[in-house]
Structure formats: structure tokens, C-alpha cells
């Protein structure tokens, strides 16, 4: 399978992804799925500077849904990034991501968000979205860097429940 990592990270292409994950996974391409960035040339140029020479494609969520299968079959190895849980959820709708794993990498504190891990803050809606994905056969786990501990969605939600 040529999409080697599906990751939710609001910073998209940044040090943790390019150095931390990139050095281990050696992707040929980053696929950034984001409505706004797909329309903004100057922001695309900015993010490309951070990709250490690896190709970057910016695509809107609906286009990404159409391309998902082709990317999987492609020989190029891709890391697919979304800024938001909801966009990853949209990609997975209709069973498009059954059997895939989604990595929760970094969502910072904000209004209506609760802390689950130091790098992960989620809203109620995002939790429901993730549970829905899990039930639909997508394995959701949190891990900021490849060498750190992997936390399953179940553990994540249980630990929160225990302390709140």
C-alpha cells in the first residue's frame, strides 16, 4: 500500500513530520488534504519550503476522495496529512479507508477542546468522529513521533474518563 501514513496534524508539514517521521518512512510525496491550502499558491510555496525537497501535493477533500484508490496503487510512497479530524473523517466516509490506520499527531489547545495528551486536544464532535471511524474499521491511534508510545483511541478515551 502506497499511503504509508495517514496523519492528523494541524501544523501539517513541519519538523516532527519531515524529520521525525520522514527520516524513518522515507516518503516520496506528501499529500496535504486541505480545502483552503488547495486554493492558495503562496501558502503552498511556504509549506513546500519545509518538505526537504520531497514532492508535495495540495488537494481539496473531495478531490482526495476520488484519488485515494489511485494513490494506494501508486508506486510512490505517500504521507497523507490533514489539519483537522473532520477532514480525515470525511475521507473515511463510505468505507474508503477500511483497514487503514490513522495517526493523531498534533492538535493544540483551543476553544471547546479538552486535553487528552500534551499534543492532543479534542472537541466532543471530534471524539465522536474518531469513534465512528474506529467502528467503521479504521484503526485510530495517537503518537507524535515514531519512537514514542502509541496510544489507542480506546486507551485515550478511557484515561480521560478516569481523570475527569
Amino acid at each position, binding site marked *: 500500500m502506497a499511503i504509508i501514513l495517514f496523519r492528523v496534524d*494541524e*501544523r501539517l*508539514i513541519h519538523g516532527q513530520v519531515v524529520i521525525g517521521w520522514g527520516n524513518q518512512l522515507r516518503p516520496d510525496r506528501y499529500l496535504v488534504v486541505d480545502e483552503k491550502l488547495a486554493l492558495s499558491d*503562496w501558502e503552498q510555496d511556504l*509549506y513546500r*519550503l*519545509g518538505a526537504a525537497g520531497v514532492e508535495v501535493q495540495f488537494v481539496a477533500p473531495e478531490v482526495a476522495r476520488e484519488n485515494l484508490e489511485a494513490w494506494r496503487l501508486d508506486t510512490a510512497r505517500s504521507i497523507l496529512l490533514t489539519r483537522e479530524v473532520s477532514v480525515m473523517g470525511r475521507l473515511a466516509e463510505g468505507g474508503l479507508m477500511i483497514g487503514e490506520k490513522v495517526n493523531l499527531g498534533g492538535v*493544540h489547545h483551543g476553544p471547546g477542546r479538552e486535553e487528552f495528551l*500534551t499534543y492532543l486536544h479534542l472537541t466532543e464532535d471530534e471524539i465522536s468522529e474518531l469513534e465512528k471511524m474506529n467502528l467503521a474499521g479504521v484503526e485510530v491511534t495517537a503518537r507524535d513521533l515514531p519512537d514514542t508510545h502509541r496510544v489507542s483511541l480506546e486507551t485515550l478515551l478511557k484515561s480521560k474518563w478516569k481523570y475527569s
Partner: protein
Amino acid sequence: MSNILTVRGIVVGHGNIPEGLLDAVRRIAGDQSEGLTAISNSGLSVEDLKIKLDAVSGSDPTIMFTDLLVGSCGIAAAYSCRNTTERIVVSGVNLPMLLEFIFHRDLPLNELAERVADTGREAIRCSSADI
């Protein structure tokens, strides 16, 4: 010391880098380090970082010193400097460029940005035989 035309400096970087660099500047230059502010990216989203950068810059001419060209700090600084001629990003911050900065804050913004970037580059050498 402060004067409406002096350039403001913000060091924006990962973890403790900004405060660490400012601490070093203070130890070397004492009170003359005023005009520099440290902003860490710890726990902040790109949007939150940009809001902080905008608030500290205000309408002053400002250089934003970032540790990396891109990443959350570089991206936030680029957003903050977009559509204004009063703010410039200088990436790859190091101590020599900050020292150059605090002693020349009365220069025009563009000239000062070029000057500190040159100083920062020149300070990097590979071998002791080169000195």
C-alpha cells in the same frame, strides 16, 4: 533608549530556544537587550502563535527571528508578515545576529534585516583553521 523609529525584534522558536537566546543576549549586553521579545511555540497552534506575533509587533517595524525557515514558527511568522512592509522574517536565528540587532535598532527595517542576516551567516564557520 526607546524611540518610535527603533525596530522591534521577536525571537520565535521551538521550546526553550527563544528564552535561552534572550537570556544569553542579556548576559552579554545587559539592559540594551530591551526591544527583544521571546515567544515559544510550546502548546500553541499556528493561529495562536500568529495572534501573539501580531500583538507584540503592533504597528512597530519588526524583525521576527525564527529558528527554522518553516515549521510552526516560520509559518506563523510568514502569516504575520504577509501584506505589511513593516515586518520581516529572518530565519536561522543565532546569537551573533541578535547582538548585531540590538546595537543597530535605529537603522531602517530592510537594511537592518539584511545586516543581521549577513552577520548570522558570517558567524558560521566550519574549521578552527579558518578563523
